[in-house]
């Protein structure tokens, strides 16, 4: 069934109370794609992702995981769908009272019949996949921010989910770590055939690994561009704010340099 997209948003409207953050958000993510949700700060990228995680109910519109209407059923249905979806939060959100192996293992323990020893082995393997072999018994507070992100990714991968949702995976990472994370994502896609939905404003990552993307515009509160970032940056009919975003504000003539000011 190659025709059914893995994830689909239909006329989604999100907001808080009477405040509408975005409306008419529609897009499709196909299996095996690396899909970016782009946008400036505060445009609602993370909120959109939270709707896909089951943490924020949309005001209108629908979300489909395959053929299943995500918000159309009860909490039990969402829980069942989320079991097949891995999530990496912005700060990693590792459970601070547990070691890395326990963090990865907790999810496995909840949903599988594995013995303690097997859980441990699975967790070690997932940690090794993200380059954290040997760190099983470290607590999240004992490792660096970049390692925490990777450990969070290992936890997201615990149940071999077909879809992964990543919230700003490279935020706060140095360029090299960020690049390594990009490579890791590409490798995981190639080997595990996972699909990634990534919220980011890291242009380097976006151009390096995105297959498809949407641009959320804070001013119009809707999706103003939809396509492969390289094409969007080149296409003449791309909306202005999206082009500005993808080119870091154009040719920089109207920004002041430090020299002018001093």
């Amino acid at each position: 069934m190659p025709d059914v997209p893995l994830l689909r948003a239909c006329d989604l409207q999100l907001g808080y109370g009477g405040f509408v953050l975005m409306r008419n958000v529609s897009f499709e993510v196909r299996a095996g794609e690396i899909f970016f949700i782009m946008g400036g700060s505060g445009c609602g990228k993370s909120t959109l992702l939270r709707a896909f995680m089951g943490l924020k109910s949309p005001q209108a519109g629908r979300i489909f995981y395959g053929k299943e209407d995500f918000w159309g059923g009860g909490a039990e249905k969402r829980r069942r769908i989320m079991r097949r979806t891995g999530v990496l939060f912005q700060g990693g959100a590792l459970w601070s009272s547990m070691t890395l192996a326990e963090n990865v293992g907790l999810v496995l323990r909840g949903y599988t019949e594995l013995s303690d020893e097997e859980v441990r082995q699975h967790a070690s393997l997932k940690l090794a996949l993200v380059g954290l072999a040997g760190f099983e018994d470290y607590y999240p507070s004992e490792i660096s921010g970049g390692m925490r992100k990777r450990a969070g990714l290992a936890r997201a991968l615990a149940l071999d989910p077909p879809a992964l949702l990543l919230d700003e995976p490279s935020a706060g990472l140095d360029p090299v770590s960020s690049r390594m994370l990009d490579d890791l994502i590409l490798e995981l896609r190639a080997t595990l055939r996972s699909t990634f939905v990534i919220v980011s404003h890291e242009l380097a990552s976006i151009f390096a690994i995105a297959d498809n993307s949407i641009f959320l515009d804070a001013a119009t509160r809707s999706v103003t561009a939809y396509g492969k970032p390289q094409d969007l940056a080149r296409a003449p009919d791309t909306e202005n704010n999206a082009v500005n975003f993808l080119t870091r504000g154009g040719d920089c003539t109207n920004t002041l340099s430090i020299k002018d000011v001093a």
Partner: protein
Amino acid sequence: MESSPQVAVLYQGASLRVSVGGQWRMDRALPVDQALEDIADTHVRELYLEAKNLDSWDTSLLVFLVRLIRTAQTRDIAVNMELPDGLKHLVRMAFAVPAQVGAARASTRDSLFSAVGGAALALIPRLTLFLCFIGEIVTSFRRLLSGRAQMRIQDFVDAVYECGVCSLPIIALTSLLFGLILAFVGAIQLTRFGAQIYVAGLVGIGMLRVMGAVMVGVVMSGRVGAAYAALIGAMRVNEEVDALSVAGISPIDFLVLPRVLALTLMTPFLTLYADLMGICGGYFVGVVILDLNPLEYVTATAQMTSFRHMFIGLVYGTVFGVIISVAGCRQGIFCAGSAQAVGQATTKAVVQSIVGIIVATALLTVIFNVLDV
């Protein structure tokens, strides 16, 4: 060679020349108000800004110029800047992005009437939310009984150790001193009648029946209730609670249930321990200060108290355990996403626990009185 900031104002027909000079520094008094008043002169149609003898300057000069230009703009006075390049740039930058419409918060002050009304109306949803939370704990407990709860035994054991064993020293200290105080206060009256021996009964019944439990409750509110609120609240801020939900693990099962169970289980034991310590404090006063016979004091305590008193104390203790753990966990779970919110949640947890304990004590005391036990 420090020079003070200067502002020279020169009229040339309809135009006003403001020349700034000297050293402008934030920590100096500035001669600015006169120039602003001159602008208010209705004849002025043009404003020239110049900096002839300007020495060095910082933001104070910029603030002054921006104020000047703003005032000029509101009066439709044309502004010509004959300033150094850097200064001109900064002034332009200050005006480059117009203030976002609606970004500045209008300070809304509710009238007393609407504030009271709003608070009263907010009570009902808050009560609903509270009852939902209680309901979730109860269903979580039922899942535990049927063996389907996602609670880790390890977490429960840790919580028992943390709120039980680790609380022993501080409970010993406070209860011992409280027994001492109780004995002293009683002795003042009782020695006047030569009835010192009744100090044993006073301390014994007082501690067993209610004061032991209250001591435990107050100490636990600060020690454990606050810790629960802060821990779960910080997990909320760090998205760890969301991560649990997304992983299909109920935060109530995983975080709240082990803590509520642990504290509810431990407070009765701690109450017994506090009772014992309080009686020891009374014994010390009776024997050392009031010169009572040690054996006599012990016998009197045994005669005047009964198991009934102890059981009543345990009921108080158990109820306090529920109140403290539920208040702490609830504040943590409903904490908003900032460090400030964690602080507020912690404060609220302690205040609600202590108020809850006092209200519950009053209610239970009335009930026990009516039941005549």
